């Protein structure tokens, strides 16, 4: 069952912003929705959430058409927003009530997530007194307080320091373990790569790539080598007719066309008695795939 998005289109005036998008989530997991600015991600998300109507197509949740009254969705928008002068406890409870929760359960959930995200001491404080990162965590709690079945996270990690990023990652993984379906939209490719099993890349409203991330990567030949050596290996790399992508203190990233070029370089290093500390033939990252698909 889960979420099914089928042949969805949307136009604003004469401009088509979403062009025949289809994807589905059959089980609780994280789905990566990628695209450049203006590619149609937000419009797609708003259609899934039932905020705006589709031009054509079908969106169903557990076999039922998506309508606000039928679904229990959560949303962390890219545009961060909180009531700056209302105490955090009050505003989260307000959203919980709007989402139909009873006070006791809402309070229980609020305290649980506030503790998890280390913001429990701020519950009686107004958000204007908090850092942006903490405000973001407050907004995240607002999105999950009502235990949504489907959660849409738009740029969840932007603006967070590494410690808070780690906290949020753990919470997201906990939600998936508890059975939440998550759609994550982000420009931080490593975040998507770390979490998402399936992805969809949009460009100007059209799907340019979609599927299981691991399988997508399998279709691409290796394109880089990560190399660390004790001695300088610049001349050896040049002898192998390979181009250095970047290098620093004998740590190299080298462009290759296929895996064979990598093995040849490895042999050459051994023949020249260069001591190798690290050698990895790498498949293209999601970042590389994204650039290839949507980069002009």
């Amino acid at each position, binding site marked *: 069952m889960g979420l099914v998005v089928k042949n969805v289109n949307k136009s604003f005036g004469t401009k088509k912003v979403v062009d025949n998008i289809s994807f589905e989530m059959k089980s609780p997991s994280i789905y990566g929705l990628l695209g450049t600015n203006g590619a149609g991600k937000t419009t797609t998300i708003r259609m899934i959430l039932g905020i705006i109507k589709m031009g054509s197509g079908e969106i169903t949740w557990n076999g039922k058409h998506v309508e606000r009254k039928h679904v229990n969705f959560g949303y962390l928008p890219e545009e961060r927003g909180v*009531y700056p*002068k*209302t105490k955090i406890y009050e505003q989260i409870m307000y959203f919980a009530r709007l989402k139909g929760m009873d006070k006791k359960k809402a309070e229980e959930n609020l305290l649980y997530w506030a503790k998890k995200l280390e913001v429990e001491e701020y519950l009686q404080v107004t958000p204007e007194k908090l850092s942006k990162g903490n405000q973001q965590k407050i907004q995240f709690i607002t*999105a999950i307080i009502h235990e949504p079945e489907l959660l849409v996270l738009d740029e969840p990690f932007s603006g967070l320091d590494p410690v808070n990023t780690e906290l949020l990652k753990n919470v997201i993984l906990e939600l998936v373990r508890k059975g939440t379906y998550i759609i994550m939209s982000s420009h931080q490719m490593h975040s998507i790569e770390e979490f998402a099993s399936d992805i969809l890349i949009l460009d100007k409203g059209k799907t340019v790539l979609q599927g299981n991330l691991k399988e997508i990567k399998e279709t691409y030949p290796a394109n880089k080598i990560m190399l660390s050596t004790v001695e300088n290996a610049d001349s050896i790399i040049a002898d192998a007719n390979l181009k250095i992508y970047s290098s620093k203190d004998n740590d190299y990233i080298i462009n290759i066309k296929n895996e064979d070029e990598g093995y040849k370089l490895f042999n050459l290093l051994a023949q020249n008695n260069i001591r190798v500390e690290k050698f990895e033939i790498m498949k293209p990252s999601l970042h590389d795939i994204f650039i290839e698909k949507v980069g002009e």
Partner: protein
Amino acid sequence: MKDVWVVASYTIKDMLSKKSFLISTLIILIMIVVGFNIPNIIKAFESSDTEEATEENFSKVLVVDSENIYNGMLEKLNDMQLGYKFEIANSEIQYEEIKNKIEAGEIEEALVITKQNNTVKVEYILEDITMMNSIPEEYTIALSNLYTDAQLSKLGYTEAQLQDFKPMFEYELKQTGEQEVKGNVFVIMLLSLVLFYAIYFCAYQVSTSITTEKTSKIIETLVTSTKPRTIVLGKTLGIGIVGLVQVAVIITVAATCAYFCLPEGALESVLDLSQITPTLAIFTVIYFILGYATYALLYALTGSTVGKPEDVQTANGPVAIVAVIGFYLSYFTMMNPTSNLNVFASIFPFSSPFCMPFRIMMGIATTSQIAISIAVLVATILVIANVSIKIYSNAILNYGSKISFKDMINMYKNKDDRNS
């Protein structure tokens, strides 16, 4: 409906926690208490002045009538209780001497009376005439009356006969029209102004609240939690309740002050208290609610079209113009409350909330006029609500440049674009 109340109760709580709201309400209440006590304050000062203002302390005025034009009647000036002590001189006194007396503080001012042909000339001499543009009216009236008395007494008329020449007059206003207006129209116009401000500023809060939610981006989370229609209606309801309670508190304080602080009979002299009935109170509340709903929903529309806080004033401009036109239509036609234009103002939906309650108060509104007025107002609210909610639903997630009138029309036509 439950969500509408959730939004409304949150809005009420939010408004009541705002310091600016509480302080402004407190200032209004203080102004009312002080305003109603002005007569008492003046009285307190006057009574302390009276204690000191014995005859000894009256300003001394020298009146020079060297030609005895007044035939000795100028002494009566001291009996007229003008607040001065008049010193009458029937011999000629030179200007220099008068000047010296004023500079020495012996007298405050002087009146020198002479007669040339048929003209009585009065010179009014004082130290500084910067703040004067003419001789005080009390002097001119007193001197004129005394001159007439002097001339008549020369003809041998008795005091009783003089009284006949100058009887007391009692004036009374009557009209030929059938409709009788009860109460002082100017006081009622003032009350209309108060009602206008109460409705207008209460409705304006809706715009501010919606703009704040939009510009702070909280709206993204809000529209995924409930329908835009619920947000608009809940917000309008919440702010309306707070506004109504605020007005009720203000009226209660004003009524209490009027009862305890105003001199006896002061209120009755400007208002026909028999017209202030529970029916009038109910209609005033109804018109407050309907008037507020009209303007609040218009402000919901304009508030949702704003992308940046600094654009709020510009976006709200058209609604402000409509409100001001509606108010002035009501206000100025109330100078002639029996006119057809005032009847129109009491039915036209943008002016009726500021007009009809006072027509009811003046006892000139007919039942059919009230029924038509309320029906027109309710119909207008339904139309505005329909348009506002549709445009709000489309505009609220638009963060770009300010939405033009043309965009709004397109948004209304594309009514299925957003789930309102």
